[in-house]
């Protein structure tokens, strides 16, 4: 299992155990974390899974995937350098402890 902490825009913090090689979007839905919608099921079609990777973790989550920029460009929340589509972040074992921040709205 891989621990992930989600910090909502209002500061609500939820830490859950995700399955290794699941992704940050699916793990939020599986654990009832509000603030991520994931409408397209991770097909990179909806941008309702926007998150901000905590600065301490940016090195480990790596760069955006192909096509992510274009979708993020029109995400509902403000797009920052650490913006990612959470469905594109795979929970590799080295991400144990990952912290992500959530935007105020997803659509």
């Amino acid at each position, binding site marked *: 299992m891989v621990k992930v902490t989600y910090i909502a825009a209002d500061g609500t913090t939820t830490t859950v155990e995700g399955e290794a090689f699941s992704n940050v979007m699916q793990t939020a*839905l*599986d654990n*009832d974390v*509000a603030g991520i919608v994931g*409408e*397209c*099921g991770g*097909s*990179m*079609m909806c*941008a309702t899974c926007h998150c901000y990777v905590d600065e301490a973790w940016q090195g480990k989550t790596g760069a955006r995937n192909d*096509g992510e920029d*274009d*979708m993020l*460009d*029109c995400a509902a929340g403000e797009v920052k350098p650490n913006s990612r589509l959470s469905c594109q972040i795979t929970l590799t074992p080295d991400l144990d402890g990952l912290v992500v921040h959530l935007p105020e709205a997803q659509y």
Partner: protein
Amino acid sequence: MDRIVIIGAGQGGLQAAISLRQEGYTGALTLIGGEAGLPYQRPPLSKAYLKSGDAAALRLRPESFYDKNAVELVTETWVDRIDRAGRVVHAGDRSFAYDHLILATGTRNLRPPIPGAERCLDLRTLADAQTLRTVLDSPKRCAVIGGGFIGLEFAAVARGLGHDVTVAEAAPRLMARVVSPEISSYFKDLHKRLGTVLHLGDPAAEVTGAGMVLKSGTEVAADIVLMAAGVVPNAELAGEAGLEVNNGVVVNDRLLTADPDISALGDCAVFPDPTTGRPVRLESVQAATDHARLIAKRLIKGEDMPYAAVPWFWSDQADAKLQIAGLAAPGDATHRRADGAIFRFADARLSAVETVNNARTHMQARKALAGPDVSRAALAAVDYDFAALA
């Protein structure tokens, strides 16, 4: 309101349950579905699932969700009658009383009245997809009736897995009901390149033990025949209960039927298109989930808002990601931008944008369509570049 019952545990029915709880509903919540197992998403059935066979990846929420959120999930149970006067629905010998009822019954595959249609396979449910996967475990000749999204997505995957594929479509072009001629022809070239044989303007007239026979007399030898010729909305329940049905359950711009205690959403619902007012029925994840959210807000927060979401849709065929923002009528005019993006116009108003592998333009179009009408003249003045629109 103490008892909400949802009929249909698909994409929209489950979203209604999720949204009702998110909006703060604390009463009893029952989600009744005819299928077995936990609610799942259908889009991957004709895409990733056909390749991977990973059924667990399809489920929309884990089992724990239903307990945690006090959603009573009743599976393998078909509702057969709505008693509006008594505000109760019946499923065999079980009954469920409601204060508000949400119809989320979706659609089922259309079976055109051609001889031998009963021999065909379908692709609508997880069970259908599992059957297809089993059949495709060795090289097969596949015939597909219908050149719409599902038939073509299946064709692309089947070719990718090395099967022979022939598609028969009644209309003169692919996906004719929903995309521009330009996009139809792009996908015609794509499928030909993949090695799929296409018969356009030549519907299947008969299905036999040896394959299918087209209207022109052409015989297509096949081991399996997939029926992908459209769907029928599951609206009989509503009709038998005296609610208006016209290509689906008719609702107003609040997604309410004529009975103030019954809403309808998703694939089974016919609602007024927010832009034109004409009655439409959409078959998309977007419509099912946006409908569900609006209904939950109305029921729990008392927000009396008309439905106004911009429609959007996607389809994956081989390496082509088709995305559609907005809703064009079949006769809408077309402008092709140099990069291939297609702009559709109802008179002077932008009605839809169709793109292939161009997520940026798709997202820009969704944003633009959510605002005031965008005119053709304004777009032409900036070379159809949304970023330059004032």
